[in-house]
């Protein structure tokens, strides 16, 4: 029992670590456009987003109650070490994509991790593939298209309606609208993604026999998950913010506003309809659509293509990593300890690679290749240590 308790503690800490990576991986979804257009200073943007993620975490526990969404059969013999392996795989994939500046879905990393670890630990019957297709794959394919079409139409409309207005007044208005819509996306993100971690922790507590089956998340789980995702969001994944804010298209304030509004509309409508989709896919699709509908209509499709590849890879890659982890964790205590060491070691290694060429709030929206990027002065590296 004592060993069990220790393992459960480790799993909870790992789940919160995943929640943290989820936060900084997804800051870009809500705030990249506001930072890119200068509607908000970078540091203020991440602070607002962090605070709203925290508030969002307290709004609802519905997603947490159905965390695995029926994907994983809870009665098929899931142990805390399976959840542990799933989390390690998800964290590593999140860190790798962050290092490459790719906005991949944290939710897919988590789902992939859970699926991979479950497949290895209990076999095919532990995963409901029908649910995987209908609740994860199809929404993942459809949501960026829906957000893109909505943002494209809205951008055309916005430019058309305001073409006669004075540039000063409309510019100010659109920036305010951008802040409001980005805040709504942050709030929705906190509700959706913090709950996924709550669900994982609750699942672990149930499998360990600490909580009765079908319990909701205890208050301390809600608080811890909310704080972890808020802290991660506040730290800010500047690499991904740069990709979304500058890499796909040159965003103007009206486009930022329409992209975020479309994202918020799609996220809220589909969670109302019961689709748990990825904020990342929706927001990226929204930004592409807004870029296409804008004045120049220029979208950097090579970046978009790279992102699409990463989206496709996320589920299988996280599943593979977690599957290997589950093999190791199944070997007993030494396997779990080794897995923990490997997970921590790889994370530290990725972090060190990041520090070689850090990106932080001070130069996040500089165009790559400009003078400030090549600067490797010690002071900047020091601030990036904290900021990245």
């Amino acid at each position, binding site marked *: 029992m004592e060993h069990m308790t220790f393992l459960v503690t480790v799993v909870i800490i790992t789940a919160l670590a995943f929640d943290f990576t989820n936060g900084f991986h997804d800051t870009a979804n809500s705030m990249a456009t506001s930072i890119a257009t200068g509607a908000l200073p970078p540091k203020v943007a991440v602070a607002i987003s962090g605070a709203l993620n925290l508030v969002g975490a307290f709004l609802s526990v519905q997603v947490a109650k159905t965390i695995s969404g029926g994907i994983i059969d809870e009665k098929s013999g899931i142990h805390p070490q399976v959840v542990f392996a799933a989390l390690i795989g998800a964290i590593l994939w999140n860190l790798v994509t962050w290092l490459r500046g790719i906005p991949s879905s944290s939710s897919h990393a988590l789902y992939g991790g859970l699926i991979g670890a479950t497949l290895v630990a209990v076999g095919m019957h532990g995963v409901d593939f029908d649910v995987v297709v*209908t609740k994860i794959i*199809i929404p993942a394919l459809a949501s960026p298209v829906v957000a893109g079409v909505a943002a494209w139409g809205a951008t055309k*409309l916005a430019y058309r*309606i305001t073409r006669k207005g004075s540039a000063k007044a409309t510019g100010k208005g659109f920036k305010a609208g951008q802040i409001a819509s980005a805040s709504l996306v942050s709030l929705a993100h906190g509700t959706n993604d913090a709950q996924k971690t709550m669900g994982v922790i609750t699942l672990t507590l149930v499998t360990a026999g600490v909580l009765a089956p079908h319990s909701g998340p205890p208050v301390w789980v809600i608080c811890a998950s909310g704080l972890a995702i808020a802290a991660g969001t506040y730290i800010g994944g500047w690499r991904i913010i740069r990709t979304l804010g500058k890499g796909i298209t040159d965003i103007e304030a009206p486009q930022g506003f329409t992209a975020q509004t479309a994202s918020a509309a*799609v996220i809220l409508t589909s*969670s109302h309809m019961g689709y748990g989709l990825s904020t990342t896919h929706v927001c990226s699709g929204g930004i592409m659509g807004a870029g296409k509908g804008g004045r120049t209509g220029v979208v950097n499709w090579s970046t978009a293509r790279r992102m699409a590849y990463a989206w496709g890879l996320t589920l299988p890659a996280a599943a593979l990593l977690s599957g290997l982890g589950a093999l190791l964790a199944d070997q007993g205590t030494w396997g779990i300890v080794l897995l923990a060491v490997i997970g921590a070691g790889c994370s530290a290694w990725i972090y060190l690679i990041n520090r070689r060429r850090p990106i932080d709030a001070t130069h996040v929206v500089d165009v790559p290749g400009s003078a400030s990027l090549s600067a490797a002065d010690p002071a900047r590296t020091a601030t990036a240590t904290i900021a990245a």
Partner: protein
Amino acid sequence: MQINWAALGSTFGVSVLVTLAVVGAFCLGISALSRHETAVTDGGATGGGGARGAVALGTAVLCFALCAGVVGYGLYIIALS
């Protein structure tokens, strides 16, 4: 496996319509506000822009209230779902 095309389709339709409605209302609000500003500056010079300015301001308030209403409904959905 059953793919619920009707649910997917209505999600698509509702998302696009809500986006267009909110963006449309917000943009009308912004241009009304811009007209109001022009009317006030004109009015200061000639003394005749008061009524036009008030109408523009009213339109702007109405449009923004509509947006706020939709956002409020959005929050309500978050808290429910």
